[in-house]
């Protein structure tokens, strides 16, 4: 059943995953806000694109956090009520619909965000390559098992993004650039664990924790930049 495939984590962690993700959402929103403010300050299109990337990430995380919250409560209720004579099977169908809508929103918004980040890192002449790569990844996503494809594609895109952030750090030797690299390494490994938890539920908890640490590090970078 579709719903059971995403409820891979232990029941004690239900709700905590959403809270951790909401913290990441707030940090992504703050980065969106600051970069958009910087765009208004210098009218540089790169800042606008960067702010959009984090705006998409904010919405993506929010979609997953809310979907998980609804699903966890709905699924647990359903499991509890399934033994009762007045059990309504329509609840499972509703839960499945919430899951499909929430997770599809999460998948597409996340990929849009990563594609924008990657396109920003490419030099002008290679921007088209980044966009073609991104568009192709969206096509692949539609054509096969979307969870495995999504986590795998995210991993590939994040690999490139993290590598480019590392090259930026090597060039600038800037402490904040180093923090950005560390946070994106965390986000990369979080994504790897999201992929692995499809086969081994033990990774469900660690994936959310790693993502949380990655975004806390990004939040620290923002704090250091704006203080």
């Amino acid at each position: 059943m579709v719903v059971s495939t995403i409820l891979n984590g232990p029941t004690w962690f239900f709700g905590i995953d959403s809270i951790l993700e909401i913290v990441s959402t707030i940090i992504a929103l703050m980065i969106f806000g600051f970069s958009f403010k910087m765009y208004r300050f210098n009218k540089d299109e790169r800042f606008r694109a960067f702010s959009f990337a984090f705006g998409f990430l904010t919405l993506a995380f929010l979609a997953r956090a809310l979907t998980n919250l609804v699903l966890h409560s709905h699924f647990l209720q359903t499991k509890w009520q399934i033994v009762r004579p007045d059990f309504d099977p329509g609840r499972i169908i509703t839960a499945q619909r919430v899951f499909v809508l929430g997770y599809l929103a999460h998948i597409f918004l996340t990929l849009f965000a990563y594609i924008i980040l990657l396109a920003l890192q490419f030099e002008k002449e290679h921007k088209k390559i980044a966009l073609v790569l991104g568009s192709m990844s969206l096509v692949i996503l539609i054509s096969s098992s979307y969870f495995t494809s999504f986590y795998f594609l995210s991993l590939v895109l994040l690999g490139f993004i993290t590598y480019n952030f590392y090259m930026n750090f090597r060039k600038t030797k800037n402490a904040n650039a180093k923090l950005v690299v560390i946070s994106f390494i965390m986000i990369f490994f979080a994504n790897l664990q999201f992929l692995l938890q499809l086969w081994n539920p033990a990774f469900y908890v660690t994936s959310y924790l790693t993502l949380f640490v990655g975004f806390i590090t990004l939040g620290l970078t923002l704090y250091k930049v704006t203080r």
Partner: protein
Amino acid sequence: MKRRSRIDIIQDMLTSIQEKGGKIKPTHLLYKSNLSHKRMKEYIDELKEKNLVEEIVEKKKTMFQITDEGYKFLEDYKKLNQFKEAFGL
């Protein structure tokens, strides 16, 4: 040498005023900002319009004084550059 953007030129002009204790003579600003007289006038008009500097008269001499908004601009410019460096923008 990299061509300065509009925002870089404004930052250079405001920094020149700040380094002179917050006030500067027009001739000094012209020298420090490395602009033609015509271009500097355009920029000064813009700075005055945005309330980043104000024109004052001191001992019968015209001076340009940086405003609180001007100091805030310099702070934001610093943050912008730090953000730019951190994310490689």
